[in-house]
């Protein structure tokens, strides 16, 4: 059985290094090494603002990662439910899922963040971090839903027929046969979304969440070293993003290497 490898291109995310530009002077290496060299050079040559800045930021990095991980986890769950809703024969489920995606995609993330933050605030008092995670996952869940839908639809119809003919019902077919196979198509774009989400968490600094960017803003406000602080912030975001995209591409290779089906 030949199964074409289907690539879901969701755009937007960070560029995941492709096999082709893996040479010594690949864009990835130039950016990564350049960023590290620049960071070290700045810290050593002018420790006064730069080393202080670097020491001030780790808390923020941790918060950024926390928001990213919780959001991606929740977004995956919302995405799966939305994706299943989109392919459901149930008209109501289908309409809800489609409308959700349509609405979310039509509103800028920053506006959503404000909206969910203050809307939630009217009803329940939740920690800023929780509000941020909910807002991020509601937004990314919509994009993830499309990834899941495409992944599920990429599986050959014969698989469903084979499972149904054995006596599996629709739900069992989905969870035992379709999703385990769709996963490999879904994973690369999910990796992309993961990186995009990490970058977008910088927006939550607006909501009194002490992430990397907010910590930087705090430091800059006290020291007036705006240029220096944002230089470091940019470098750190770049390094994290580059590392993650590397991780995703390694993961992708693994997937292709192991079950070649």
């Amino acid at each position: 059985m030949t199964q074409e490898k289907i690539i879901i291109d969701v755009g937007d995310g960070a560029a995941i290094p492709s096999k082709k530009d893996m040479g010594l002077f690949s864009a990835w290496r130039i950016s990564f090494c350049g960023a590290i060299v620049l960071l070290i050079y700045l810290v050593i040559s002018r420790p006064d603002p730069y080393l202080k800045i670097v020491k001030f930021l780790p808390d923020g990095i941790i918060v950024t990662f926390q928001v990213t991980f919780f959001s991606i986890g929740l977004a995956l769950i919302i995405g799966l439910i939305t994706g299943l809703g989109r392919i459901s024969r149930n008209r109501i489920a289908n309409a809800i899922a489609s409308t959700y995606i349509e609405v979310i995609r039509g509103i800028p993330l920053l506006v959503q963040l404000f909206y969910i933050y203050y809307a939630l605030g009217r009803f329940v008092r939740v920690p800023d971090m929780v509000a941020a995670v909910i807002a991020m996952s509601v937004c990314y869940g919509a994009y993830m839903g499309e990834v899941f839908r495409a992944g599920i639809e990429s599986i050959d119809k014969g698989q469903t027929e084979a499972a149904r003919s054995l006596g599996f019902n629709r739900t069992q077919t989905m969870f035992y046969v379709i999703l385990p196979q769709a996963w490999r198509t879904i994973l690369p774009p999910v990796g992309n979304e993961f990186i995009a989400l990490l970058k977008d968490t910088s927006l939550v600094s607006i909501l009194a969440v002490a992430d990397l960017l907010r910590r930087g803003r705090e430091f800059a406000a006290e020291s007036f070293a705006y240029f220096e602080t944002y230089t470091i912030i940019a470098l750190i975001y770049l390094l994290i993003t580059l590392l993650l995209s590397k991780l995703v591409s390694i993961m992708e290779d693994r997937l292709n290497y192991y079950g070649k089906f």
Partner: protein
Amino acid sequence: MENSEPIIRIENVTKRFGHLKAVDNVSLTIKTGEKVVIIGPSGSGKSTLLRTINRLEEITSGRILVDGMDIMDRATDINRVRMEVGMVFQNFNLFPHKTALQNLTMAPVKLKKIPRQEAEKNALRLLKKVNIAEKADVYPTQLSGGQQQRVAIARALAMNPKIMLFDEPTSALDPEMIGEVLDVMKTLALEGMTMIVVTHEMGFAREVADRVIFMDHGAVVEEGTPEHFFKNPTHDRTKLFLSQIL
């Protein structure tokens, strides 16, 4: 015939795809243990008819009884019917993320709640029967087409079905692999399995079938024993078809 009870009753079944009548008012009864081969030109509705029997295609009108159960009845649990009706597809449709053995054990373990050990023992026995026991732990993509199809037959048998449906089981195979699949099917026939086979393999039809059915434009044109069918076909369309493919 060891038993003359009809196990499948197809009554005035029509299946439409939009304006096209893929199956046009077909009635058939198939007895327990009977081997029926359906032949006909492509687009004649033979695969569609086969697929209506386990409701992979929903019929537009008519009635189908499988082992006494009306498959279109809302009260019928179609999944129960399907557990009794094994199906083998043209493109094998093995589960690529499972090994050959796991392909066989999955349905019995999940659906019939058979203990894993017992299911594996039974699966190995079936893989042996289709002459592929040595590939038990191999993934489908590492198997040839003929091997995949034999695993697919074993997978269907693992549910211990009363009826086996074959939808052009050798059409996607390289010529040198057709024999090994047909051999497995012949063994199955000898053991008394009720079989409905859509195929272009006339040699198989002649050797194994109790009854050959010729379909064209969604309707049954002619049916009879292989003897009658290949030596003295009555209808011109049957004669034409046979002259083209023999």
